[in-house]
């Protein structure tokens, strides 16, 4: 029982990283932007957050707040760059995305060495402990209340994003932009504005995933594995058929599959194969949805395509 609960809570904690990434990427993709820069953007978000922590690391609440704001802004900046390249300069989205990934990862790896990381493990306690009373509640406490603030924030953001997309006018417009920008344009919706804003906010949210991964999941020790989390987040978007509310459970499932190897006694080679399961599952989902062919489970129709009004 104890092992099982700790496995589940571990899955939730790692899954939260994916949840940030996939919620951000879903919002971006709903606007028609296939942003393959997410791994780089998550690295950049982590870098921004870490710079924030190194500045005000000793003050509990302020640390978290500043780290989140820094992380969001750093990641959003790359989102802005992506939008500028694809919307304003009409660059190819795939190439731009991969460039952003390379740029973000490289930049982060370079600059993190300039950041004083000595205070991180102490600062990470501000992230990991939200409720202190969960220890008295047994397995229930560990499963539901043992997490840091950013886990709950991720779930809240995912639910809000889901409500935004399905229940608000702006959400409807955003989906229209991603499905058929010419139609949205003819209806008087600014395709440019929606794509910029959705990509910047989406990137910002994804960037928080990087911060969470370092400060909460790894409790303040820097690792060069954030970009791997980024790729899994993009896979998760497909897995959840572009629905942020599915993403909550989907991300925990991915988290569980990813850490499964640590809980079963297998050889080193087998461990790596187990870690591939999320990608395998994503391929299965892709195959199933394309066989079923329901319009509602397909990606936004103009995903990856740039829009230019006077093109004829």
């Amino acid at each position: 029982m104890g092992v099982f609960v700790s496995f589940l809570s571990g899955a939730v904690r790692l899954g939260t990283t994916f949840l940030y990434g996939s919620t951000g990427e879903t919002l971006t993709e709903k606007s028609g932007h296939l942003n393959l820069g997410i791994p780089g953007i998550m690295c950049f978000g982590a870098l921004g957050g870490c710079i924030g922590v190194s500045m005000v690391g000793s003050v509990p609440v302020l640390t978290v707040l500043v780290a989140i704001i820094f992380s969001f802004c750093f990641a959003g900046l790359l989102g802005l760059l992506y939008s500028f390249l694809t919307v304003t300069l009409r660059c190819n989205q795939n190439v731009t995305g991969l460039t952003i990934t390379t740029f973000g990862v490289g930049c982060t790896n370079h600059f993190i060495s300039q950041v004083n990381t000595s205070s991180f493990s102490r600062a990470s306690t501000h992230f990991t402990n939200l409720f202190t009373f969960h220890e008295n509640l047994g397995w229930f406490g560990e499963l539901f209340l043992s997490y840091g603030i950013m886990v709950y924030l991720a779930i809240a953001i995912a639910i809000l994003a889901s409500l935004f997309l399905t229940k608000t006018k702006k959400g409807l417009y955003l989906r229209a932009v991603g499905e058929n920008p010419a139609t949205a344009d003819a209806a008087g919706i600014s395709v440019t504005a929606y794509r910029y804003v959705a990509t910047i906010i989406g990137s910002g949210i994804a960037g928080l995933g990087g911060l969470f991964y370092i400060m909460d999941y790894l409790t303040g020790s820097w690792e060069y594995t954030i970009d791997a989390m980024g790729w899994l987040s993009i896979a998760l978007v497909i897995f959840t058929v572009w629905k942020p509310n599915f993403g909550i459970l989907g991300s925990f499932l991915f988290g569980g599959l990813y850490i499964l190897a640590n809980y079963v006694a297998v050889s080193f080679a087998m461990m790596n194969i187990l870690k591939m399961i999320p990608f395998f599952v994503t391929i299965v989902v892709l195959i199933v949805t394309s066989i079923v062919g329901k319009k509602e489970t397909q990606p936004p129709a103009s995903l990856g395509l740039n829009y230019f009004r006077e093109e004829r």
Partner: protein
Amino acid sequence: MEKQTALELKGISKYFGSVVANKNVNLSVFKNEILSLLGENGSGKTTLMNMISGIYFPDEGQIFIDGEEVIIRSPKDAFKYKIGMIHQHFKLVDVFSAAENVVLGIDDGEKYNIKQVNSRVREIAEKYGFEIDPQKKIHEMSVSEKQTVEIIKVLYRGADILILDEPTAVLTPQEIKKLFGVLRKMREDGKSIIIITHKLNEVMEISDRVAILRKGEYIGTVNTAETNEKQLTEMMVGKKVELKIERVKTDFDRPLLELRDLIIKKDDGSTAIDGVNFYIRGGEILGVAGVAGCGQKELCEAIAGLRKLESGFIMHKGESIVGLPPKEIIKKGIAMSFIPEDRLGMGLVPSFSITDNMMLKTYGEGKSPFVNRKSARERANGLIERLEIVTPSTETPVRRLSGGNVQKVLVGREIESSPNVIVTAYPVRGLDINSSYAIYDILNEQKKNGVGILFIGEDLDVMLALCDKIMVLCHGKNMGIVHAEKTTKEQLGLMMTGALDLNEQKKDKVFGKAKDSNLTEEQWSAAEERAEAEKEFKEKSDD
């Protein structure tokens, strides 16, 4: 009653690069009126309407609404002035419901309440006599239902001026009747309606006045009650222009390519070619006339083996080529060059050089795994010399050449493979006079060599001068095949718009079936029986 002007255009011009889309157009629409906008392909009707609805911005001229000058920079501005356009290609989001599409882009400050929208959509539908389920998803709808959604979309926004771009092109006669009923109700309701159509009988039936455009220029407006189809056609196509295109006299051979009972569908499932028969002899140029989107593209693709036939036969020298892969069809000597609107599309790779483009159709020859660029370069050089293609070298990407030279490369390469049938669609599209003549010369030379040519064209004057026979398509149907020497531009115009159907005039004659066919009647009927049996077999195995 004094008529009130709802919309007025003064001196509107629009250029795309060096192409003149509209030049000095003046137009006015009254309230309580249906105005038809008539014109040939590329006469700038849609461009003009796009300027009113804010998709394009005019280069010159003024727009007045209710007597006041306005500037329309975007579709949003157009809504502000209560202008709504129903595009030929529907602008709808497939995965959204009707109501969700209707509410797109409306910023009235109201809370988003889809139930309220649903009931308002139903209200509008009832008022004008539509039938619609607001919750139905667009991708589950038929074409006419989609059109209904488009119309409700602009009515929901309170549009007073409605523009419909070829609304009847995709509808069945019953649906057209219904649509016209709705339009009349709107007219009574005080709205102004502009309807673009090619069909003269519809113009006569629905409109109060007709405005005519020709080659981007405004020709005039006439009251429908005071005109007839003949006068409208004359205004639309203009007087015949004498062109000095040589029509080479050749001895016709037996039919090379015979097509019978063709039925071909478009991508969206609607019928593109509907039961068409025709044949091409060696040493003959058969022209195909028709307004845009009458199945020309689908016909080309079917002959080249790129599109499946629903049913029908394509016989090349008496042998069926239906179902053969494109490569086999090329081997048989059937070459196709299709110049689409954007001119580069089908046939050439824009970023490849002339040499590399030359190799695209011959890469399969030779045993070596390496490409033989040397011989391709020689052929490219020969082509450049013979057709006087202006290019810095054989290695310049085709995309950097001017339009005329690109088309010479394309047509030239098709000839290079010494085909016996050439299918060419719009080979002179967008070319200046000299380049056009160069292309005509190439075709005539091939004709002399006994090649059968299918020439799908736009300019009736050219077709009358160049072709031996002309087949006229109207909405996928063959309206008749006429000898170019014996016909007039007016007759072709009437046939293109569906006002004249030679099949009805000469009921005993079947157009497009050669008397000296390569196959005997028994062989044809045997082929038909075989196709029948195959179809039945397929249906059975599908169950």
